[in-house]
């Protein structure tokens, strides 16, 4: 009998997913819309006029934001231990309000080591998050594969659903599909990395 070849996995992209159910999402939503209204009255200098709203959140300003960050800090500590990194710290946290008809183009979160999203108010049809392969495999792999596997896919879609939280490498390119519903999709995004400067 022929001995099976040994296989070793290198350089995968990682997505950590979980559900966060301990937050008062109504309180968070009110806070996010307050920030959106504030920005409408006093738009930050140089901020482009986009079809969606993206507002920075201030941790000390809202108890639910503080709770969320505490939960995320715990998750990041575990992740860093798992992947062999020294503990990271929060770089920034912001809310996204995607109205009907809006999505987000492909992007990465330079220079964050980890980025992520928590869905405050989202459901199927409001815009899933799509992660795209960028290691060259996307140009070499056949268009049709026998059986989808993490090895042979060119992109992977994760659903947006209230309370879900995804954490991923900051370099992992992703986009958000169009909100095809008739109401806003609300999410909170965040970046973690090493102390700057």
């Amino acid at each position, binding site marked *: 009998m*022929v*001995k*099976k*070849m*040994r*296989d*070793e*996995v*290198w*350089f*995968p*992209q*990682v*997505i*950590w*997913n*979980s*559900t*966060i*159910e301990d937050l008062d999402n109504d309180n968070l939503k009110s806070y996010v819309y307050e920030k959106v209204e504030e920005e409408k009255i006093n738009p930050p200098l140089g901020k482009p006029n986009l079809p969606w709203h993206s507002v920075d959140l201030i941790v000390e300003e809202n108890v639910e934001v503080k709770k969320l960050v505490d939960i995320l800090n715990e*998750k990041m500590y*575990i992740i*860093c231990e*798992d*992947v*062999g*990194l*020294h503990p990271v710290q929060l770089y920034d946290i912001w809310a996204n309000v995607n109205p009907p008809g809006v999505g987000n183009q492909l992007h*990465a979160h*330079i*220079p*964050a*080591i980890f980025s992520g999203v928590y869905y405050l108010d989202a459901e199927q049809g409001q815009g899933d998050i799509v*992660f795209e*392969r*960028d*290691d*060259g*495999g996307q*140009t*070499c*792999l*056949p268009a*049709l*594969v*026998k*059986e*989808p*596997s*993490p*090895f*042979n*896919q060119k992109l*992977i879609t994760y659903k947006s659903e209230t309370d879900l939280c995804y*954490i991923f*490498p*900051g*370099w*992992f390119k992703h986009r958000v599909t169009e909100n095809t519903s008739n109401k806003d999709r609300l999410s909170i995004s965040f970046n973690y990395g*090493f102390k700057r400067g």
Partner: protein
Amino acid sequence: MAMHTELWFPSVVWSSVIHVVDNTELKKWAYERKRKDRGRALTNFAGYQSNDILSGECEQIDKLVEHVSSEIKSCAKQVGLPVLEIQNIWLNINPPGSYNNLHDHVGSILSGVYYVDASEKQGNIQFERSDGANYFLPEVVEKVTYFTSGRATYASKSQALYIFPSWLKHSVQGNQSNTDRISVSFNYGEKNA
């Protein structure tokens, strides 16, 4: 609530040590081939790379192809790829001081190398991460893991066989010995592509 971890788009390197080829015969044939075939210059610095070897030209290469094709079939099945067929196979003779620059095998799906006469000092193969993570990850990490590593080095040693995704960038270290390093490389792609 606990986090669920999912790994996407991994690069897989398959390895084994095989005994189906008579390396003494193949080595002899390699030098004969070098005399007859001027070869080509691609990623090889100061090394010899033959033009593609055709079926029936060398009994030992045919034996190797038969074995590799069977292994490729298993690898492809494991990761959900369609049936692949050999695209080309060639010979490399890296004399002392020679090496191969970083490259990939675009146009193929699985590639690989078999070592006819090689040792670790003669130039290991190094696979490099190419997803941009190196611009983000710190130079010093607490420990090297699947997440933090930027390079995977595999030893060049006689009878070793490595198969890897064709898009996985790799280079060959310099031959630091005083004898030639001989290997055979190959590409597999979609059938009838």
